[in-house]
């Protein structure tokens, strides 16, 4: 996970580069880099399951931003339904909440990344940027706590996206 961790550190570095009067370029790159930190974390975790290590980076290129968002939405909705039933405290509930944090953060920061990279009319503030970076940090922490759980591994597979098999 070193690359993803480095990207998250870099996002924080960019956000703090000019604390008094940050340029929009620094804030935008910080938001975008924070998204890519989570994007690459999930891809690297998914491809770790591929036995042939020399092919993992090639496999990683199969992942698509839009399909990953769709899969995260599906997972988020399913978890919202579960959490909405107010289940009693359990280890499973903790896992669900952590996975919800990961999927929800992925959806939200992906939109932020799109705004940061393409919507030049939007003014970014330190408050907004720090919120995004902190959200990604929390998603990292959540992921590391549940990465070996079956439901987390199933989520990774779902990120590849579904395509209907021709009849």
């Amino acid at each position, binding site marked *: 996970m070193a690359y993803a961790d480095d990207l998250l550190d870099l996002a924080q570095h960019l956000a703090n580069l000019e604390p008094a009067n940050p340029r929009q370029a620094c804030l935008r790159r910080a938001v975008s880099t924070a998204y890519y930190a989570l994007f690459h974390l999930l891809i690297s975790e998914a491809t770790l399951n591929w036995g042939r290590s020399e092919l993992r980076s090639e496999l990683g290129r199969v992942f698509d931003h*839009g399909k990953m*968002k*769709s899969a995260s*939405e599906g997972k*988020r*909705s399913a978890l*919202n*339904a579960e959490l*909405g039933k107010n289940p009693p405290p359990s280890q499973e509930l903790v896992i669900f909440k952590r996975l919800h944090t990961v999927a929800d953060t992925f*959806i*939200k920061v*992906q*939109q*932020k990344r*799109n705004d940061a990279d393409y919507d030049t009319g939007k*003014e970014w*503030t*330190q*408050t*907004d940027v*720090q*919120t995004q970076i*902190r*959200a990604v940090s*929390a998603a990292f922490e959540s992921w590391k706590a549940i990465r070996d759980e079956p439901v987390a591994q199933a989520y990774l597979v779902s990120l590849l996206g579904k395509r209907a098999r021709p009849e």
Partner: protein
Amino acid sequence: MWEPGPNETASSNTRDNEVVYIAKAFAQQAELDQAIDQVKQMLGPDVVRLRYTLGQDWTGESAIFFRIVLSERASRRDQLWNSTSQIETAIDRHLQPLEQWGVLPYFNYRSQSEQAVLQEEAWA
């Protein structure tokens, strides 16, 4: 036949008889305003202002974009994560933007002092 979900509304018949479903948030904005006002009252004084826009996100999905001005206390580095987590949890739980209104929620924040400098009308 496809039936609209609880968060969708059948809006119109097109010329080729296809029915278009739109998110309930777009079709019932007065009710959405009321629901958001109610949630806002639960958020406490750290939410100085809460505005929103309905639109589409980058993938074309129906979305609600919240613009939230935070108090200086809530936007301090050591408070920011706690403040924003509580706000988003409250909105998710009580408004249920996706499940009840058919729109994905997105949150944008700034502090009172940042808004004072930027003076953006959309946040005022």
